[in-house]
């Protein structure tokens, strides 16, 4: 067995017990690993209608087979569960070094069941598995948790090789917007997962090990990886943009195309982009590049901050943070956006879900639908202090912030204006306006994980033209394109690679790396078929959880209110028109149900 370890740890927190299990070869062949395997296990083992915060929900941490092998960007560990925010299936992507260390501890996967009586940490150190009481960690931020755990180890050298994932106060308090943090990195798409971990009284997982990961054809693999590193290096989008600025370099570009949302998607252009572009970023912060395990791109930028709101190290704002926590809340001050992003990391909040909620509150207030009395907090578009204060309170469920912590949708409904919630399936939209990016709009409505761009990054072709040049405004060919990219992403996630690598490499470029690693002879089509299988299984889970065609829709604003000004003036979303074609391509019926044949082939 190559790439794979073939072992899984099953922890039952109710019984305070665990056991090691073999993972059947058949499952690995059919679902690859990572996201695919996690989805399969969740589908088989839980009732999709279960309350996400009940002990019957399960949390699955699973690294892909390419993680830890040195495959380029092979760092990702997925967390699969039923989301506390949306009620759909959820799959976060953890970056950094946790996923690789999980493999070196001799495991591909950890399945967590039940609920501990009191807060615990699962510690897997050199094959010694312990469920440790963690009362003193409860209430701590994520970086405090990491430091406390490492300094509690008697061997200071071992502490340096230990990697942790944890939840912050937000997850403990079961705030549905809570996320999981590892190695100081915010996970991607983690909204609704932190609270599930909190509901199990699981504060953190620590891993360290001495196991090896083997690859099938060592010489060939080393050759292929070397080629891919050079290829990435010669792709200007990677070497000149991502490596220097991280995804923040997209801000200027998106602004020029009228894609960046402003003030809860009320407009999509913002005149002074120089305040938020890369130059502004480098004058606001001293950036240090950080790479996830085995990543030649190193898009993560770390910074130090020391001011009256915040002191410490954190991640520099990414495109997502600048869009979701900044511009969509009308805020253009990068320092405030950066601090808000770091608070999300420390408190364990998801920036898209939290930012979307605050943007909704701000629009409610702007329209006079929210008086200061009702929430006892100010929500003024453009006011960074309001944002920072709301985030901190929301994570700790203090006072009135308890109510905004329930999320954008609940808030908009509570004040009688559900139409002001800018999201799909209870999850706020990632900061891309679906009116000026038709493919992204279709992906947002059909995504099994809610409207998150990193489950099909249509942007790379609709704007950056990396693999093919597509017109962002046309719907022509988009259903095929979106389906293909969704399937590709399912494969990339399942193998444990980073989505950003697709900005410099074509899907076909990965095939020799995959085959020489796993000892397989996959062709691109075989893998795409697996991607489709995973996508259908996720859809099936959501259908059984009560979702159907009526949930595959964007807020009315995007269908009815054309973009008012800027480069994409006059555009509306036509995601609804593409839906039938998309269903047909997937082989689903008009209600969006995968047919019996498809279900059986799962």
């Amino acid at each position, binding site marked *: 067995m190559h790439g794979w370890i073939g072992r899984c740890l099953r922890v039952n927190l109710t019984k305070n017990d665990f056991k090691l299990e073999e993972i059947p070869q058949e499952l690995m062949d059919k679902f690859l690993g990572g996201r695919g395997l996690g989805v399969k296990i969740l589908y088989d083992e839980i009732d999709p209608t279960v309350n996400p915060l009940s002990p019957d929900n399960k949390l699955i941490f699973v690294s892909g087979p390419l993680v*830890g*092998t*040195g495959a380029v960007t092979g760092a990702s560990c997925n967390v699969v569960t039923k989301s506390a925010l949306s009620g759909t299936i959820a799959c976060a992507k953890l970056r950094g070094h946790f996923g690789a260390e999980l493999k070196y501890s001799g495991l591909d996967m950890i399945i967590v069941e039940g609920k501990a009586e009191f807060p615990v940490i699962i510690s897997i150190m050199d094959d010694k598995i312990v469920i440790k009481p963690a009362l003193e960690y409860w209430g701590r931020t994520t970086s405090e948790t990491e430091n406390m755990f490492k300094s509690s180890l008697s061997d200071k*050298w071992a502490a340096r*090789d230990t990697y942790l994932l944890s939840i912050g106060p937000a997850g403990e308090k079961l705030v549905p917007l809570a996320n999981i943090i590892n190695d100081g990195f915010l996970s991607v798409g983690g909204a609704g997962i932190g609270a599930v971990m909190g509901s199990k009284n699981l504060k953190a997982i620590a891993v360290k090990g001495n196991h090896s*990961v083997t690859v099938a054809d060592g010489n060939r693999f*080393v050759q292929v990886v070397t080629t891919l590193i050079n290829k990435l290096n010669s792709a200007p989008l990677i070497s000149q943009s991502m490596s220097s600025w991280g995804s923040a370099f997209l801000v200027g570009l998106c602004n020029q195309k009228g894609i960046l949302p402003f003030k809860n998607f009320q407009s999509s252009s913002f005149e002074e982009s120089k305040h938020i572009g890369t130059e502004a970023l480098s004058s606001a912060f001293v950036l240090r590049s950080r790479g996830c395990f085995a*990543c*030649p791109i190193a898009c993560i930028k770390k910074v130090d901050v020391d001011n009256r709101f915040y002191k410490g*190290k954190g991640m520099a704002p990414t495109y997502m943070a600048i869009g979701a926590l900044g511009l969509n809340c009308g805020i253009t001050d990068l320092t405030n956006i950066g601090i808000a992003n770091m608070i999300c990391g420390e408190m364990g909040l998801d920036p898209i879900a939290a930012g979307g909620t605050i943007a909704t509150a701000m629009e409610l207030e702007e329209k006079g639908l929210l008086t200061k009395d009702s929430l006892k907090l100010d929500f003024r578009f453009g006011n960074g202090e309001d944002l920072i204060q709301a985030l901190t309170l929301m994570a700790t469920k203090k006072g009135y912030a308890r109510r905004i912590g329930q999320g954008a949708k609940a808030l908009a409904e509570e004040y009688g204006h559900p139409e002001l919630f800018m999201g799909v399936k209870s999850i706020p939209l990632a900061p891309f306006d679906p009116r000026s990016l038709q493919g992204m709009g279709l992906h947002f409505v059909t995504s099994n994980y809610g409207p998150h761009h990193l489950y099909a990054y249509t942007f790379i072709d609709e704007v950056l033209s990396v693999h093919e040049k597509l017109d962002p405004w046309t719907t022509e060919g988009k259903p095929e394109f979106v389906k293909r990219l969704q399937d590709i992403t399912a494969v990339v996630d399942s193998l444990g690679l980073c989505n950003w690598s697709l900005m410099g490499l074509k899907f076909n470029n990965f095939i020799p790396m995959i085959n020489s690693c796993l000892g397989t002879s996959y062709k691109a089509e075989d893998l795409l078929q697996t991607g489709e299988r995973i996508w259908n299984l996720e859809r099936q889970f959501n259908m059984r959880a009560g979702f159907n065609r009526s949930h595959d829709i964007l807020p009315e604003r995007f269908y009815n209110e054309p973009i008012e000004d800027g480069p994409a003036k006059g555009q509306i979303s036509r995601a609804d028109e593409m839906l039938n074609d998309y269903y047909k391509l997937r082989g689903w019926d008009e209600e969006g149900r995968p047919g019996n044949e498809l279900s059986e082939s799962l």
Partner: protein
Amino acid sequence: MARIKIDHNKCTGCRHCEIACSFNHVAGVANPRRARIRVFREGATYFPTIAGPFVDAACTSKNDLIIGDQTYDMCLICRASCPEKPFFIEAETDFPLKCDFCGIPPSPSCVRWCNSGALELVED
């Protein structure tokens, strides 16, 4: 003579060098604990450290290392495969690991996979 120049300001902490080294010494096996180069984090800085021989004398003159306003423990960046620090002792075999300056030409494995430029092959 060729040698490897390390610039810790450029290091991103990706640890690709560790895996490259591991593959070079045991075909098909990725395991950072078998690598003869390890990357240690201290505060905000990463220190790629290449394993060298252990001589008792090295420890008798141990000093603190001060870079900027940070003080570092000499042991951390010391390259000796010494018994006090388990990093350059292979876990399974207790074998002391030492860089054998592999792979020239064209260049050592760790340098080849280091994309940030933190490791560089230079001629003296």
